């Protein structure tokens, strides 16, 4: 058994934390981009497209992230790809994030008062012009706080990728625990690091939300 000093534990967890952070950023940015497409499809005037995206959102919100990971992981290997864990993790989390963000953003678009649609209609703007110039700029402001709030869920979601073997913070915690037999300390530290990552985001989301409500 390797002797682990406290500082070794912390250092190794910090190294793994980078992967948690990187995966979170990739999933958040990728999920945001895909989510925007899902949002536009969800708001489309074509019924089949609306239904399809509603199903997409329903499936991702109605099944465990772990199952989404497994299906991505094993699904990709079915089509003959040799899938590294990071790829399956990044892809599954991106899709997961896109579904939730699309739904959050749809709520923001619907929160823009009807009068804004009417006023811009009466000025002869087309649907896309209304979206581009009147509705989305307002929805975007509404969306900032809940979007940052959801980023916390993404960071926490990355922990599940440890189960398919992606070595991020949680997996590193398990590996170090197996070597040190100090689960209380190690998982305590793991939790602390997640907290340090997530709590500022939570605070930020909360203060933005308060600011927005005060501004109204």
């Amino acid at each position, binding site marked *: 058994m390797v002797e682990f000093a406290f500082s070794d534990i912390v250092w190794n967890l910090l190294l793994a934390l980078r992967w948690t952070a990187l995966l979170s950023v990739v999933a958040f940015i990728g999920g945001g981009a895909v989510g925007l497409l899902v949002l536009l499809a969800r708001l489309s005037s074509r019924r089949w497209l609306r239904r399809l995206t509603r199903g997409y959102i*329903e*499936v991702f919100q*109605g*099944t*465990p*992230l*772990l*199952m*989404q990971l*497994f*299906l991505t992981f*094993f*699904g990709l290997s*079915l*089509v*003959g790809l040799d899938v590294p864990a990071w790829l399956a993790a990044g892809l599954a989390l991106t899709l997961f994030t896109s579904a939730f963000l699309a739904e959050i953003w749809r709520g923001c678009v619907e929160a823009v008062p009807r009068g804004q649609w009417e006023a811009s209609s009466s000025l002869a703007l087309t649907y896309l012009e209304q979206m581009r110039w009147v509705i989305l700029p307002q929805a975007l402001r509404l969306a900032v706080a809940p979007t940052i709030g959801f980023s*916390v869920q993404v960071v*926490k*979601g*990355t*922990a*599940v990728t*440890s*189960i398919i073997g992606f070595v991020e913070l*949680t997996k590193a*915690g*398990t590996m170090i*625990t197996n070597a040190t037999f*100090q*689960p*209380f300390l190690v*998982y*305590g530290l*793991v*939790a602390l690091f*997640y*907290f340090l990552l*997530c*709590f500022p985001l*939570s605070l930020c989301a909360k203060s933005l939300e308060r600011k927005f409500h005060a501004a109204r």
Partner: protein
Amino acid sequence: MAYQFDFSSLSGYGDLLAKGAGLTVSLTVVGGLAGVAIGIAGAWARSRPVPVLAPVVAAYVEVIRNTPFLVQLFFLFFGLPALGIKLGEFQAAALAMVVNLGAYSTEIIRAGVQSIPRGQIEAAMSLAMTPLQIFRHVVLIPALKKIWPALSSQVVIVMLGSSVCSQIAAEELTFAANFIQSRNFRAFEVYFVVTALYLALSILLRWLLSRLGQALFERRRHG
């Protein structure tokens, strides 16, 4: 190379899946009931200017909401024995779900409590009701009614989150799936079917919770 799907390889495992689903449901029921109870108590504690209790509850809520459920589960299952507290798999899983949902529902119910107009509480105070009586009779029911959809969603999220309890060998639905695919080597088919089961469970749970909400909060009709 074209892959041949083979769902028939799942036959014979129906009992196992049913048992796993049963455990997932049990975990959800325990977690839901105790978690919401904690949420009500927590919201009550935070609504009062009690010196120690309110900040302790606030810290509990923030710690739980800003760490992954999987890490909470590992901490309880692997970490607590270091303090001489040994939990079985089901106990640890159930406890983790209760603790997790307790924090979220504290926050959700608190938002409902805060939405109750000040005048309602002043009216109750003017009728000489105690703070606990006011909370119990005037504040709680309309607050719960208001946040019921958010609370229901959170219960569904916790049910879906229980899937990681397979990692401490609690024999719920995902554990059953892992077991089956280690036997029949048909991972994709197994997880596909189990994912569909989860989807069905979450639709069912949402429906049940909305019916429950109607039953709890519907206005009583006279005559």
